[in-house]
């Protein structure tokens, strides 16, 4: 087998996503259809990235036409958006909030500060 470097290695790691048949019957299709049409977002405005979220949810780039709504509590949310740098204090609270959400749940990291420190890296 020829070795194409990074791309080949990535392919062996990803496997073949289309051959995953564990979620393919009609009930799963129905559940996924409902789940993707209605997403309740807990906009957890941790840091500086919080300013990007209100324009997305309000009148100009309306997120509600896609079924995305802001959730009032983590109990009602599907997705939590962490949008800035996390100190230890913030991290403890994010973990508590994430544990209050019910499955299936997703966490979205917004911005470079959340991913690797961003402009606060040093």
């Amino acid at each position, binding site marked *: 087998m020829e070795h194409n470097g990074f791309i080949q290695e990535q392919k062996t790691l990803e496997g073949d996503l289309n051959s995953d048949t564990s979620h393919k019957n009609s009930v799963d299709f129905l559940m996924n259809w409902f789940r993707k049409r*209605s997403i309740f977002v807990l906009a957890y405005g941790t840091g500086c990235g919080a300013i990007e979220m209100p324009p997305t949810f309000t009148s100009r780039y*309306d997120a509600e*036409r896609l079924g995305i709504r802001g959730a009032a509590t983590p109990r009602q949310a599907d997705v939590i958006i962490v949008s800035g740098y996390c100190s230890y204090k913030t991290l403890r609270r994010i973990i508590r909030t994430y544990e209050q959400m019910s499955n299936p749940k997703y966490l979205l990291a917004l911005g470079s500060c959340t991913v690797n420190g961003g402009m606060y890296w040093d």
Partner: protein
Amino acid sequence: MIVIDLLLMLIVAYAVGFLYYGLYRNITARFQRRFGPPVWQSFIDSIKFFFKEDSISHGWMFYLGPVIMTTGAIMTLFFIPFFSSGNSFSGLSAYGNLFVVLYLMVLGPLGNALGVGTGGSPFGAMGITRGLTRLFAMELPFYIAVIAIMSLSGSADIAAIASGQTTFNAFSYPLLFIAALISFIGMMGQSPFDVPGAPVEVYSGPASEFSGKFLALLMSQSAIFTFAKLVLMVHLFLGGASGFLELLLKTFVLFILVISFGAIYGRFKTPQAVDFLIKVPTGIAVAGLLLATWS
């Protein structure tokens, strides 16, 4: 046969209630210069919550809270006939009159208050204390107006009140209608009387600790209860309905009127709301009652 009748009433109330909420989100969006979600978005929201894999529960009373609320909503619906005459879609209205309906309307929120109390969330407790205080104030003008209508029509049977109106009660007794309408705005959860469930103030108040299937049940009962209350107001004040089209048209017009109020006004605090409701609509209702019975 009555079982099929009740089942059809339930399905109609569920479907129409959620469609009205979808239209409400669209119309509010147009007020705010944007497009809204598709009309069936409220169905999808509530059914998605049924598909959540787990729902956190805090004991048997917490479990019973939404159940009691749904029971109250569905029983209220069953005792209100859809049409002012005839046997179809009359539900259980032959066995209970307006007194039973008025009693069942408060059963739901009271049961839910017990359930929310065991949830342990302080926002839930704040929400239900505010909600029950508001309910106490809201009932006063509504009951004065409804009892006035009952005595002026000479009957406590909803179908009889609906069919006995030559001109709409809203135009014959306008003060009673205005008092009942102000209360009705609060019953539909619209501004300026919507502080118990406000998302930015009490983190959705009573609903703050419910997740998964409990929340789905709360949303479904909200749709059913909305339709039941709209039909009741149509029968009491807008002359009832003799066919589906007329019923849908009248409930839709009333619904648009109520949510237009909600979209425009800000929110009263609970003491402000109670103060207003005990003084202004009650005064209007009493004035309307005196005017109607002395002439």
